[in-house]
């Protein structure tokens, strides 16, 4: 009888096995295969991994992708924390708070491809932003770095992924008991001390969850990088997709396995700092 409740997890377990477990095993298997121009040869070789680790390209791709991840994580964290803090502690009544929170999700009512591409005419050489700057006499020449650059990539990422930071942080902050803060203020703590010693520690779960979302999304992206950098910047997955485009499955699979390990390590790292499970239970 006690075993029976395990069955409740069976549907999810089956789904995970079929749609996650099996493909993952396949990818890992293929990553050890050899290949030539026309065929994948099912043997066991380490060449795919040796080439991957032996190539300076791999390291520069990871450096580039991690650079994006760090910048975007920092920016979305600042934005996510600030917006949530404002909504939770400064907006009254509760209905307005909820309404403003929903406003944050408005951009998500359209597809993220459209949201990203709409930056292109805005930031372009003859785009609205440059035209406005020139019209206002702030610059004489259009600013070229705005589009098809790292700047453009980061802007698009931050725009696309900020909500993934706002939602979990908002959620944790909303659960902070106002009495705790009142007590701190009564005891003479200033605003920043309250943030540092009460709000941040009690929002840790949300920050960790948001960070996992943002980091995983940036590490796994190739489309935003490709479009917003005008194809002039690469990410780990973009290189992988170039390999798949010419049917080089085994090296792409090896690259996927390594990326999976790297992202898993990052997530584990975040979870080591914040025990999400315990915080959620508490």
């Amino acid at each position, binding site marked *: 009888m006690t075993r029976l409740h395990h069955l409740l997890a069976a549907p999810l377990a089956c789904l995970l096995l079929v749609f996650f477990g099996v493909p993952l095993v396949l990818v890992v298997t293929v990553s050890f295969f050899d290949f030539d*121009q026309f065929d994948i040869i099912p043997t066991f070789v380490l060449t795919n991994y040796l080439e991957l680790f032996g190539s300076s390209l791999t390291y520069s791709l990871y450096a580039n992708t991690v650079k994006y991840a760090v910048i975007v994580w920092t920016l979305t964290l600042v934005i996510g924390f600030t917006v949530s803090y404002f909504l939770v502690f400064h907006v009254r009544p509760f209905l307005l708070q909820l309404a403003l929170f929903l406003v944050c999700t408005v951009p998500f009512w359209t597809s993220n491809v459209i949201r990203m591409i709409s930056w292109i005419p805005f930031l372009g050489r003859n785009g609205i932003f440059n035209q406005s700057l020139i019209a206002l006499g702030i610059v004489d020449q259009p600013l070229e770095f705005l589009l098809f650059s790292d700047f453009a990539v980061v802007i698009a990422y931050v725009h696309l992924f900020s909500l993934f930071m706002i939602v979990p942080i908002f959620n944790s902050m909303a659960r902070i008991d106002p009495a705790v803060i009142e007590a701190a203020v009564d005891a003479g703590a200033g605003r920043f001390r309250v943030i540092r010693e009460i709000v941040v520690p009690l929002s840790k779960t949300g920050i960790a969850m948001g960070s996992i979302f943002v980091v995983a999304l940036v590490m796994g992206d190739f489309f935003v990088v*490709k479009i917003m950098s005008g194809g*002039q910047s690469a990410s780990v997955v973009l290189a992988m997709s170039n390999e798949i485009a010419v*049917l080089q499955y085994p090296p792409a699979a090896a690259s996927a396995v390594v990326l999976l390990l790297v992202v898993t390590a990052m997530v584990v790292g975040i979870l080591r700092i914040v025990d999400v499970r315990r915080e959620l239970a508490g």
Partner: protein
Amino acid sequence: MSAKNKTLRRQLSRREVLKGAAATAGMLAASGAIGGFPTIWAQNIKDVKLVQVGGSYSAIIDIARQASKDLGFQVEMQTGAHDALLNRFVTQPNSVDIADMEYFFLLHLVPRGVLHPIDLKKYKWWDKVVPIFTKGEYPDGRKVSTEGVLPFEVQYVDGPESTKFSKRPTQWANGIPTVYNADTLGIRPDIVKRPIEHWRELLNPEFKGKSAILDVPSIGIMDAAMAIESRGDIKYGDKGNMTKEEIDKTIKILIDAKKSGQFRAFWTTFDESVNLMASGEVVIQSMWSPAVTAVRSRGIPCYYAPLKEGYRAWASCIAPMRHLKGLKLDAAYEYLNWYQSGWQGGFIAKQGYYSSVPETAKKFMTADEWGYWYDGKPAKGDIKDPYGTLMEKAGQVRDGGSFWERMGKVACWNTLMDENRYMVRKWNEFVSA
């Protein structure tokens, strides 16, 4: 009258009806309205459905509609990007009936045996196909450039079961050539303000931050090679099949150019190239012919520069898949014959592409359209695309001139290199540099 006789008479009368229909069809064919289709008379032909999978520029829904109407069975079009197509043909060949692809795909597909070699005895237009494809020659006997993958080099196999390319014409074709074109650089004359005559201008610092190339590694590197060779930095043995050393040198030059800020962007889709040009982000870039027209139809000056070094050409073909059998295979042959009977050729000509059987396409174009698209003559009236949108105003001449002036100057073909694996890795280095 016995029951048997009754059946016989019923059959006879049905046959007469069919004869009448055939006569009508014959008359229509004679008048050039249709090519005498359909010719298969199976009861269940209407249940047949052929799925053609190809690029958006060739697997066009209008062609499927017209084919379904003329042939009595269903043709369905599905489109995808280059890489998605190649992956699908190789990994899920049974989900496709007619592969619609660039010729260099054949290098991947024929050795894998996923295609049905076409019996040219059952294909009626082969002797009318432009000799670039059938013989690798121009009509005057000159050999066409073999840099890259010249369609002729992968056109034939030895026999119906063979997976080896034949160096000389045989009865077995790997694909029927469909649309093709000669690609060059698109220019914004209002900003460039001087004639552009060489590929090397792509790398000219004068256009720093305002030039672009195609971000499909195998094609982008060819455009780069045209520019690099034109500048005199490297003399390639075969631009379309570079050695590792040539790839290294090419990528190094590209990385230097990129670091100095030469390129504004690398584009992947048709629309991206149009937008880059129309918005003025880019003033010189590798481009496709209809994309140039698309820029112009927005009222923005743009032209497709004929360059001294010649064009980078590409060609598509359609091929039935190996899994087709019986009635479906018959329908596929029927479809191949219909495809080149003129309607499709006329349709795509009005988008700026060429048909491999120009003489049938001609019947589906007005004299003025033919004059503009194929003969390089000034348009007498406005030139419209197949949907009636204005493409060119009266008086305009096609950039690069007539069919043979353009296709006669092919410098290289879209390609798949032997060192493909190495090239893709180097290209990734270039993009991430």
